[in-house]
C-alpha cells in the first residue's frame, strides 16, 4: 500500500530566526483562545461587582428571621463564607480559589458550587442539545424552502409560523403542551427527568439517557428519553422560529449572487445548487445565530425548567438569585459566560474553516 503521506513532499520551512511561522489557522485559533481567557477574567470581575452591588444582605436572605437576629450565628455565618473580609480580598480569594477549580460553597445548598453546577449542567445540556439539533435541521429546511418559494403561499405560512414560534411565551406554551400531551392525550410522561418509579442511573456523564445506556438500563433510557420530549419540543418551537427567519434571509441574499445564478444556468441539479452553493454561502450568518441560540438555550431555560420540574442551570440560577447566594450566582454567571465564550470560540473557529478569508483578516 502506498501512503499519500509517505510520498508527499514536505515543503521547505520558512524560518524566521528560531521561530517557525505557524499555519494561519493555528495563529488565528491561538489568538481567539487568548482573547477568550482574558474575557473569562473580565466575566469574573463583572459578575463579582454586579453581585455585590445588589442591595441586600446575603446573611438576611440565607438565615431564618430569628437566626438572623442572633449576632453569634450571624458572625459565624459571615466567617464561614468569608463575608467578613473586605470586598477586594474576597475577589482575589475567589480568583485564587478559581485557579484551583474551587468556586466556593453555596450558602443555600451548603454544597460546593462546582458540584452543584456539575449536577445541574447535564440536565440543561440534555434538553439544549436536543433542541438545538432539531432546530437546526428543521430551521434550515424551512428557511430554505421559504426563501426558494419567496412570495408564495408556503413562504407566507412559514413566516407566520416562525413568527408565532418566536412570539408565544415559552412559559405559557410549556404549560399548555404539558396539559394537552400529558393530561389530555396521555402521550407524554409527567414532569421531571424520570418517573418516580425509577432511580436515577449511576452518574457518569449526568445525561440520564447516556448514563442509562452505559448502565445497560434500557427501561430507564426510554423513560428518560420520553421525559425529554416536551421540554425539547417547547425549546425547539422557539428556536426554530428564530432560525427559520435567519436562514430565509441569508438564503435570499445568496440566491441573488452571480455564482449561484451561474450554477443554475449551467444546469446543475437543484439539490447540488442548494447544498454546494447556497447553504455553504449562507452558513456563516446562520452559524452565528445557531451559536447565539445555543448559548441562549443554556442560560435561558428557567421558565421551561420550572414547568417541567427540570433541575437544570436555569432553576439553580433562580434559586441562587432569590437567596442572594453570592457563590452560587458567581458560579452560574461564570459558567454561562464561559459557555458563551466557548460557543463563540467554536463558531469563530468554524468561520475560519468555512471561509479562509476570516483567518487572514
Amino acid at each position: 500500500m502506498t501512503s499519500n503521506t509517505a510520498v508527499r513532499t514536505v515543503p521547505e520551512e520558512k524560518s524566521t530566526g528560531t521561530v517557525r511561522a505557524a499555519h494561519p489557522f493555528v495563529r488565528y485559533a491561538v489568538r481567539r483562545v487568548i482573547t477568550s481567557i482574558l474575557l473569562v477574567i473580565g466575566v469574573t470581575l463583572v459578575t463579582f461587582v454586579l453581585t455585590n452591588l445588589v442591595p441586600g444582605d446575603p446573611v438576611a436572605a440565607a438565615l431564618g428571621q430569628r437566626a438572623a437576629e442572633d449576632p453569634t450565628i450571624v458572625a459565624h455565618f459571615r466567617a464561614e463564607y468569608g463575608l467578613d473580609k473586605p470586598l477586594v480580598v474576597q475577589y482575589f480569594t475567589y480568583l485564587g480559589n478559581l485557579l484551583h477549580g474551587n468556586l466556593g460553597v453555596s450558602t443555600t445548598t451548603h454544597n460546593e458550587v462546582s458540584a452543584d453546577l456539575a449536577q445541574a449542567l447535564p440536565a440543561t445540556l440534555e434538553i439544549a442539545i436536543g433542541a438545538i439539533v432539531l432546530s437546526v435541521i428543521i430551521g434550515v429546511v424551512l428557511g430554505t424552502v421559504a426563501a426558494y418559494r419567496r412570495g408564495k403561499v408556503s413562504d407566507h405560512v412559514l413566516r407566520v409560523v416562525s413568527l408565532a414560534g418566536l412570539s408565544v411565551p415559552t412559559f405559557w406554551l410549556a404549560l399548555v403542551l404539558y396539559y394537552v400531551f400529558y393530561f389530555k392525550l396521555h402521550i407524554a410522561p409527567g414532569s421531571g427527568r424520570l418517573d418516580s418509579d425509577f432511580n436515577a442511573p449511576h452518574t457518569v456523564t449526568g445525561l440520564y439517557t447516556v448514563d442509562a445506556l452505559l448502565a445497560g438500563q434500557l427501561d430507564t433510557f426510554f423513560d428518560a428519553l420520553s421525559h425529554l420530549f416536551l421540554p425539547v419540543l417547547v425549546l425547539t418551537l422557539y428556536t426554530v422560529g428564530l432560525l427559520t427567519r435567519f436562514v430565509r434571509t441569508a438564503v435570499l441574499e445568496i440566491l441573488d449572487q452571480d455564482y449561484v445564478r451561474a450554477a443554475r444556468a449551467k444546469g446543475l441539479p437543484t439539490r447540488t445548487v442548494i447544498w454546494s452553493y447556497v447553504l455553504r454561502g449562507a452558513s456563516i450568518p446562520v452559524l452565528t445565530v445557531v451559536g447565539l441560540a445555543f448559548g441562549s438555550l443554556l442560560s435561558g431555560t428557567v421558565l421551561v425548567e420550572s414547568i417541567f420540574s427540570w433541575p437544570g442551570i436555569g432553576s439553580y440560577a433562580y434559586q441562587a438569585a432569590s437567596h442572594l447566594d453570592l457563590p452560587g450566582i458567581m458560579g452560574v454567571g461564570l459558567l454561562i459566560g464561559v459557555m458563551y465564550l466557548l460557543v463563540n470560540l467554536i463558531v469563530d473557529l468554524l468561520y475560519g474553516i468555512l471561509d479562509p478569508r476570516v483567518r487572514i483578516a
Partner: protein
Amino acid sequence: MAFRSAKTRIAVGAAVVAVALVITGCSSGKTTGSNSATKTLTIDKAFDLKTADPSRMYEPTGEMVDKALYETLLTFKGGDVSKVVPGLATLKESADAKTFTLTLTGTHKFSDGSPITANDVVFSLDRVIGIKGNPSFLLDGVTVTKKNATTVVLTTKTATPALPSILANPALGILNSKVVKAHGGTTTTKDAAEKYLNTHSAGSGPYILSSLDLASQVTLVANKNYDGTDKPTYTRVVIQNVEGPTQKINVQGGSADVALDLSGTQATGLGSAVTVTSNPSANVIFLLLNQNPSISKITSNPDFIKAVKESIDYSDLVSIAGTGTSQAPGVVPSMFLGALKSSDELKTDAAAAKADLAKSGYAGQPVTLNFPSDITLNGIEFPTIAQRIQSQLKAAGITINLAPAPVATELDAYRNGTETIGLWYWGPDYPDPSDYLVFTPGNVVGLRAGWAAGADASISKLADAAAAGGSNAQRQSQFEALQKALNDSGPFIPLLQPGNNIASKSTVTGVVYNAVWTIDIAALGKK
C-alpha cells in the same frame, strides 16, 4: 471493507449498538414491578429545602422530610398543634416553667437497631445549640443535662412555657450520636456531619433517607426497625420539586399522589378523582405602619393607623385569596392557643375611617407601601394584595405609592425598620403564642415597625403577663387581652391566614394539615 452507502453505515452502526447492549446485559432501573411489594407514594412540593440535617434545617420542606426520618421527644397528634403529646419521652414540667424532665419510654430503636439513650438526647439537643445553625435559637437559654440512662432535664433561667411545643419540632429530632460522631458530628461549630446526614439518615423515624437531591427529589424508604405506632403504609416515598401549576396537572393526571402547594384558585375543579383538604395556614399576612416619626410622621399618628384599619375591606382580600383563606383574627393564628375568636377580627367601617382620617390631619400626601414582589405564599401573590390595598385605601382618600422589591433586597429595609408601611408575613417558629410576643414594643417585629421599648407601656405590661406562662386557660386569656390591645392601638394590621390546599388522589387517606410539618407522611394510607 468499506461501507458503500449511508444506509449500510447506519444499519451497521445500529447493529453494533444493539450488540453492545446485549453484551453489557440490560438491567432495570425501575424500583417497582408487578411482583414487587414496593408501594411508592409520590408527593409534589415546591422545594425550599436546604438540608436534611435536622440540627441545621428550618424550612417547611425540611420539616416534612425530617418528621419522617427522626422522632422527637414530644410531638403533636394529627393537626392539633395546641397540645403536645408524648413522643419518645414523657414530660414533667415545673410550675414555674423553668424545669422540664423528659423520660424516655418504651424500647425505641434507631434505624440501625441500636437503642435510643439519654446520651443520644443530650448530644442531639446540644448539637442544635452548639453548631449555630438556623434552628439554634429554639433552644436559646436552655441547658440540657442527663439525669440517668433514660432521663434528661432541660432547665431555663426564665419561664419558657413554649418549650414543650418547641420540643415537638423535627429540628429537635433525636440523632444516633454514635453514628453522627463517627461521621464528624460534634456539638460545636466544627461539626462536619451535614454531608453524611444529607446522604444517610441517623434517626428512628418511620422512614430512612434513600437519596436527596436538593434541587429535584428526596427519596425515602420504610425503616424496618421502626417501632412506633404509625407503621408506614408506603414502603417508598418520592418527594419531587414541582411548582404549583404543574402540581395541579400532575395530581389530576396521576403522576403525583399528593400535591402540597396549590393556590385557592388551583384547588378548584380538580375532578372527583382528587380530594382537596383546605385549611387556613398558620402564616399571617400583616401590614406594619412605622411608629418612628423620623421615618414617617403620617404612619406614626394613631388616628391615621385607626383610619387605615377601618378602611381595609378584609372580606374582599379573603375573596381574592381563594379557597381555604380566612381573615387573621390577630397576630396569633386561629389554630394556636391564645388565638382571638373571629368576632374579634378587625372590621371595615368607612364612616369611622373618614372621621379618624380627618382627625389625623392627613392631607393626601403619598405614603409608600413596601413589599416583597417575588413572594407567593400559599398561592397568594404579594403584589396582588398590595394593589388591592392601594385601591381600597384610595377609595378612603389615602394615597399609597407601591414600592415592590425582590425579597432578598427588601428584607434589609424590613429588618432595619426603615419601611413606612410594610406588607409581610410571619410564619410560626413554633406553635405557641409566645412566638408572637415579637409583635410588641422593643421586640423583633415591633422594632421593625419602629416601635421601641417603652413606646406603649400598657401593651408591654400585657406582653409581660403573657410571657410569664401559667395554665392553658390563663395563657389563653392573657394572649387574647394582648391581641385585643394590639388590634385596637398597635401598628400592625393582621390581614389574612392564606389557605393551605392539599390535593390528593382519592385513594390516599390520612391527609391532615399540620402547621409545623405540613403533612405526616407516615400517616398517609391507601384505600
